[in-house]
């Protein structure tokens, strides 16, 4: 009898736990502007480590690049190996600095040109799973970042802040299948809906909003500014293919984004209008 009572109690506890867990998953499946204190604390604990790992990884990547270049030089000229090795390493380091410098310079120009207030942020992490295209920035509520803010680079749209802690924020990339933005064909001004493509392809799909919309390969798609998230006229990408839909009534255009979402190091958060 006591055994039966114990089994019954365990069964009830399991059912309640499953229901509560279901509720939490369902609630957090929606996009939330505020995260719980537990998530905030957890992320803020991890963020310095994420920053350290991200920087270490970058350092090693640069070193690996330098070593690869070094190997090529050894094969080409054995006699000048030592000298070339030294010079090449130095050149590589300088290239890295120049690339970073150029990016930051362009970002600064872009920041001065635009009418929006922008915040420079460093990418310190990526989605830990293979199903979601998100990045983590080292800027959060303490720096004025809130959910729903657009994230861009001087090449175009990166994504939207979906949640944030005090010192970090998570950005859903525009190439994620759950992302969508209002777009416009630059040459004709026709409106299209731009969405991320399923299957981690890094591509976008543009579908027409109007009946007479025409899109050709090579057309540039920019933001329409109608969604109020992304500023108007920022480049989204270039049409690389147009595929007709059923009965040729509509089409879907495959858009290659200008931003390489796999190599993001720094981005700009659009804080709002000046």
């Amino acid at each position, binding site marked *: 009898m006591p055994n039966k009572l114990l089994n019954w109690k365990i069964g009830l506890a399991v059912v309640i736990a499953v229901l509560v867990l279901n509720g939490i998953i369902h609630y957090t*499946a929606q*996009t939330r502007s505020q995260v719980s204190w537990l998530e905030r604390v*957890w992320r803020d604990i991890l963020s310095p480590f994420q920053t350290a790992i991200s920087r270490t*990884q970058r350092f090693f990547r640069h070193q690996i690049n330098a070593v690869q270049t070094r190997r090529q030089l050894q094969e080409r000229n054995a006699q000048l190996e030592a000298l070339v090795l030294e010079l090449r390493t130095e050149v590589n380091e300088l290239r890295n600095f120049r690339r970073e410098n150029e990016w930051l310079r362009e970002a600064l120009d872009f920041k001065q040109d635009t009418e929006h207030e922008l915040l420079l942020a460093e990418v310190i992490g990526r989605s830990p799973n293979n199903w979601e295209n998100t990045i983590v920035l080292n800027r959060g509520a303490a720096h004025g970042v809130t959910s729903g803010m657009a994230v861009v680079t001087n090449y175009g749209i990166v994504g939207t802040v979906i949640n944030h802690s005090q010192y970090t924020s998570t950005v859903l990339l525009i190439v994620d299948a759950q992302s969508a933005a209002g777009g416009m064909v630059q040459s004709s001004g026709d409106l299209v809906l731009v969405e991320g493509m399923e299957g981690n392809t890094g591509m976008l799909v543009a579908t027409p909003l109007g009946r007479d919309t025409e899109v050709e390969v090579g057309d540039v798609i920019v933001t329409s500014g109608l969604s109020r998230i992304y500023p108007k006229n920022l480049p989204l990408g270039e049409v690389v293919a147009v595929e007709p839909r059923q009965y040729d009534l509509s089409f879907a255009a495959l858009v290659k984004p200008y931003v390489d979402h796999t190599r993001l190091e720094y981005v700009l958060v659009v804080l709002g209008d000046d």
Partner: protein
Amino acid sequence: MRYVGYGLILMIALLIETGGAPGLSLFGVRPELLSLLTMLFTMSHGSQRGAVFGFSAGLMHDLLIGRFIGLYASVLLLLGAAIGFITEQLFKDNFLVRLGTVFAGTALSQVLYFLGMAAFGRGISWLQLGWQSVLAASVLNTLLSLFLYRPMLILDKRLNYWHELLKRTG
């Protein structure tokens, strides 16, 4: 002491996962370290403790992502329980059985997570499941298990030793 040690191992794994670990990717897919650790832990501790370990690992992951909180925790809980049950029936020290279990377990956890996301409104269908991603992650985890199984056992023994030592000395 033991629990702090396991917590640190999971935290490091999570940081490596979020850090990208570019050198570890196969066809752009990264290994699923948390599910791998759950399986390796379960193989030496049984299904009950494996399920608790898996749930904790999944919860850490979910809280960091901030979406579908509890989903990955549930998936890894089920994975821990299932792997524990299976390895109790099989000869777990057999090298090939271990590899096969890790491969199948990784694939199972990936599919379950995908189905969970679809069920909770991700707006995707079963047909969109990237089988290449599932396969690549499973292969990567299987390869990694070759290098991580022994160190995990040694680490586990050390943690137990320190735990007992601290308990005795108070």
